[in-house]
């Protein structure tokens, strides 16, 4: 980071800064448009969902209707359990695997790593037909673990953590071993704390992806007990009665609120963790 704090010699000044700001702001507005529309529509009666009359009366009716149309409380719980389960297991499994790749030499390590990298491309999302069959054989259809299992061993996570672990100086590792620490202890006491930014960045990616995942949960869940929010939102997406944007927007805001709020509050930390994670 620049010590001078002025953005360096190429930072735009004066007119070009204003121009750039204007362009950036225009795009920002475009990017926010759907969310702004959602906010407008959710808080106004249906007749204003296509008309943008400035002083139209506000109403919470849509939220009430949305809440009543499906058991969103249960969906919230399910989704929360789902992302927590996935993230927790991912952190554990990927840490162990990354540690193995980073610091251990064993026969077949190269092949194993290549197999892991395969998953970067061949994601569970494209193997829906076969994975469904596997879940049926395991008797896990229509449960939250069924949604979670295919994603727990994450090649992305292993890859990131391996990079992070590799950058820990070997001397620290040797020093810890000299003091008699076992494998797991070295991992827990040394590597994990040093990779904190990576964990944070990875958690952000994982949570936002799985909170919003749709196709696999749609296929593998049937009942309310296992269904996450995105599948629950489907009740509004296709109806004989046509699209009622007011209710859809209310439901959208309801289900996205936790993530949006979390990001609003923690965005600096997240971006910083991405930086410190050296993800590139």
């Amino acid at each position: 980071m620049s010590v001078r704090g002025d953005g360096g010699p190429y930072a735009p000044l004066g007119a070009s800064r204003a121009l750039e700001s204007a362009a950036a702001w225009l795009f920002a507005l475009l990017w926010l448009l759907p969310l702004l529309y959602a906010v407008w529509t959710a808080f106004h009666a249906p007749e204003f969902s296509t008309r943008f009359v400035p002083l139209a009366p506000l109403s919470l009716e849509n939220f009430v209707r949305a809440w009543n149309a499906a058991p969103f409380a249960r969906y919230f719980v399910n989704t929360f359990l789902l992302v927590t389960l996935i993230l927790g297991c991912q952190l554990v499994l990927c840490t162990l695997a990354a540690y193995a790749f980073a610091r251990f030499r064993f026969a077949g390590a190269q092949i194993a790593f290549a197999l892991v990298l395969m998953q970067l491309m061949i994601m569970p999302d494209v193997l829906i037909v076969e994975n469904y069959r596997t879940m049926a054989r395991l008797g896990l259809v229509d449960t939250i673990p069924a949604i979670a299992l295919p994603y727990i061993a994450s090649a992305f996570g292993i890859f990131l953590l391996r990079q992070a672990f590799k950058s820990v100086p070997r001397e620290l590792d040797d020093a810890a071993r000299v003091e008699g620490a076992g494998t797991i202890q070295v991992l827990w006491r040394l590597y994990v704390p040093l990779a904190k930014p990576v964990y944070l960045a990875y958690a952000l990616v994982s949570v936002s992806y799985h909170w919003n995942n749709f196709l696999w949960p749609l296929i593998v869940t049937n009942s309310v007990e296992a269904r996450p929010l995105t599948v629950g939102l489907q009740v509004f997406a296709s109806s004989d009665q046509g699209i009622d944007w007011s209710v859809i927007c209310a439901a959208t805001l309801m289900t996205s609120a936790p993530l949006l709020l979390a990001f609003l509050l923690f965005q600096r930390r997240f971006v910083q963790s991405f930086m410190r994670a050296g993800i590139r």
Partner: protein
Amino acid sequence: MIQRAHHAIHGWLLLLPAMALLALFTHWPALATFIDSFWSTPRPRRPAAFVGLDQYRAMLADPVFWQSVVNNLWFALGTIPVSIALALLMAVWVNDRIAGRALVRMAYFTPTMLPMIAVANIWLFFYTPQYGLLEQVLSHFGVATHNWLGTPATALACVIVVAIWKEAGFFMIFYLAALQQIAPVLAEAAALEGASRWTFFRRVQFPLLMPTTLFVLVNAVINAFRTVDQIIVMTHGGPDNATTLLLYYVYQVGFGFWDTSYAAALTMVLLALLAAVSLCQYVLIERRIHYR
């Protein structure tokens, strides 16, 4: 010696849980899909029979399959370069000290936080003829009304726009992190030599961002083949298969028609495409490691 063996065993033990799950949910299904594609779909009155390349022959003769491949390639061509370029541009803007940059950064990243299934409906409103948002804006400029999603020529483009909107902000974060890691002394040195901003970008920043670009490229490619949520909501693959993508067709065939073996053949094509890209990426990563 025993130390080495011990060491190796530890390594394998640490790796085992992850490998087991990967094998079960990635490698095994891929293999099973491959095998399945050579058999016919089992039905209650007709058990599965080995049919060799029949599924593939049917696939090659299926116009919807070809349409979905072409659509997917256009989709990839439309989303990948544009979202990466936009992400880079956004990162550069946010990195510069423009006014209100925290808000701008948040604005760009917001689409990532919203489920596609929900925003697809909002975009449906944007594209609705006559009173949709796009139409309302365009009518001010005197542009005639157009059925954006109902015309094959424009439907795919509309879906591409939604995909770009959704992922550019996500990629921006990676670029932002990488940009801020470039040592400021480089900028000062370049300025001293009288390089213009564009030259600085082209000769210094962009090459240093190469690893990020590669990383983002891989993600963009994967996304081009796996995002179908907006199609499920907005167009159902229509009009007349104009927005049917490969994965969407797999879903339709596997879970709509219940023709699981044909779906397996289709999945193999998808996997082959992804594997080809994976190979390129692995080779490039190797080169990058040497380059670093």
